[in-house]
């Protein structure tokens, strides 16, 4: 048994220590926001946060996570009360098929926690490891800027303030 802290709660996990975090999240804890894409850390669909930093959960075995805290998209907000990053992605209609979006949001969230006002180049550089085959990159970019503004005003109204430049 391994103790794993996810979204603020301790869980007793009955899995081998070499099990990838992604499998534990999806199969044991039924947290299905993080997606299985390539299984090799090449696509970013499985991105979650570990101690506030973006991590590819498909190549992160449980044994690396002792004493660390995992945050998934479910830990940021809910349908009723979405987090700024989720609201921004909805308001910018940044998802098409949506498969990459949870990973995109988690990596963007980690970026915004480190750097509340990233430039276009910084967002592009950071999200470079996350692939999107639908091609909504420009909307994703706008959504991250919008999330930065939402977090800055820390005011969760639905008014929005127009699209980003």
């Amino acid at each position: 048994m391994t103790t794993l802290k996810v979204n603020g709660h301790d869980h007793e996990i009955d899995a081998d220590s070499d099990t990838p975090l992604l499998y534990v999240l999806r199969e044991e804890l039924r947290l299905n926001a993080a997606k299985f894409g390539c299984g090799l850390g090449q696509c970013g669909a499985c991105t979650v946060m570990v101690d506030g930093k973006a991590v590819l959960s498909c190549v992160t075995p449980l044994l690396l996570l002792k004493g660390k805290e995992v945050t998934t998209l479910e830990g940021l907000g809910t349908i009723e009360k979405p987090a700024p990053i989720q609201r921004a992605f909805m308001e910018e209609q940044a998802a098409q098929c949506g498969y990459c979006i949870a990973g995109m949001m988690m990596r963007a969230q980690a970026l915004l926690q480190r750097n509340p006002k990233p430039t276009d180049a910084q967002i592009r550089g950071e999200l470079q490891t996350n692939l999107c085959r639908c091609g909504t990159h420009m909307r994703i970019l706008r959504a991250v800027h919008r999330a930065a503004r939402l977090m800055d005003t820390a005011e969760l109204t639905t008014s929005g303030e127009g699209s980003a430049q």
Partner: protein
Amino acid sequence: MPKPGIVGGVVAAVLIGGAIAAFAVTWRPAIDAIEPPAPQSFDPALVKRGRDLAATGNCSDCHTVPGGKAFAGGLAVPTPFGAIYSSNITPDADTGIGRWSEVAFQRAMRSGVDRAGHHLYPTFPYDHFTNVSDEDDHALYAFLMTRTAVRAAARANDLSFPFNQRFVVAGWKLLFLKGGTYKADGTQSAEWNRGAYLVEGLAHCGACHTPRNVLGAEKASASFSGGDVDNWRAYAINAQSRSPLPWTTDALFHYLRYGWDADHGLARGPMAEVAANLSLVPESDVRAIALYMTSVFGPPTQTRVSEASATRSEIKSSEQPAPADTPGAAIYHAACATCHDSGRPLPYSGINLRLSTALSAPDPRNAANIILSGIRPMSGERSPIMPGFANSMTDDQTAALLTYLRGRFSSQPAWSNAEQIIRDARRAETVSLQNPSAAAPAGPMQRDKP
């Protein structure tokens, strides 16, 4: 007892003589400024040849800030004496080389003196460029003078006294700058000589791969024995090479041309841009470089040959993975083996680590850089990707993994200095996160179709 007047005269004569000698050594005249030549005045075929040569010389690597305007300079080059900033070599009239005549350009290439007569620091590798032929300097000049002019003033260097005094460089040149262009070796083939001309001259391979002395000059007695560059180890590329399989001309060609070789892995760190640039130049030049470098490596010893064949059969035998009985082994089997022990060849998977030169290197610097930062392709390039583990592994976990990798995949003694090196690698990783464009070169690049 000599009269004070005579003593005074001798002292004065020595001082004056010394001053004249020092003046002769350090003073260089300015060369007249010219009106910037019109780009149309250069022959396009010459410009094209200059472009290939500039790629061979990897000029853009130092003279372009990542993500910035091509050849506009401003990149900090760290040295033991402080940071030196690269200069603007676009044809801008005021901040670049727009007013440099070809004579001034060639003087800079041959003897490291700028148009105004200032000595240039040898971070600009004129100790190699002195080998470049007149006609190649001619083509390089045509190429640079037809680039987009960028207004970007040079940044002041961040050097301590006395290194911030440019006349000091004149003394350095007396000691270390040999001068003279490349002399062909009549006993070797034309292709070998072409390779030697490029390697020792424009390609300046030794600038990274040869260790430097306390005054920052390449140690002539240790050519290609390996050096330090940024936070990376440039491996020995002579008989002291520790690559598990000896390099061959074909392997070198593939590695330099395509950025990877099945028996040796990927070009990464500062070598990634070198290989990206070598994908743009005439194939025959890359072959010539590979041929010459094969002779620098020399034929492998009998011991190396038998070790290599043992390594090959070990890889073929698909042995059962060793039990995960240490923390490092457990990490390897859980996080690394999926790609690195998959039995799939490069570039479709990670290299089998029995072939890794990084794990046989004198220190774990390159291995730590790769584990923490991963590998991202050069912008516009096709290349394998490796995820970095900086955010999921602690320093202790990284150290445990390095210890295991060294013990299992190399016959060299254990590394002793992993902790500090991991901290340095983590710092480098953080810097690259803050400057994400650091992974992206300024110009679009198209690697040849394999």
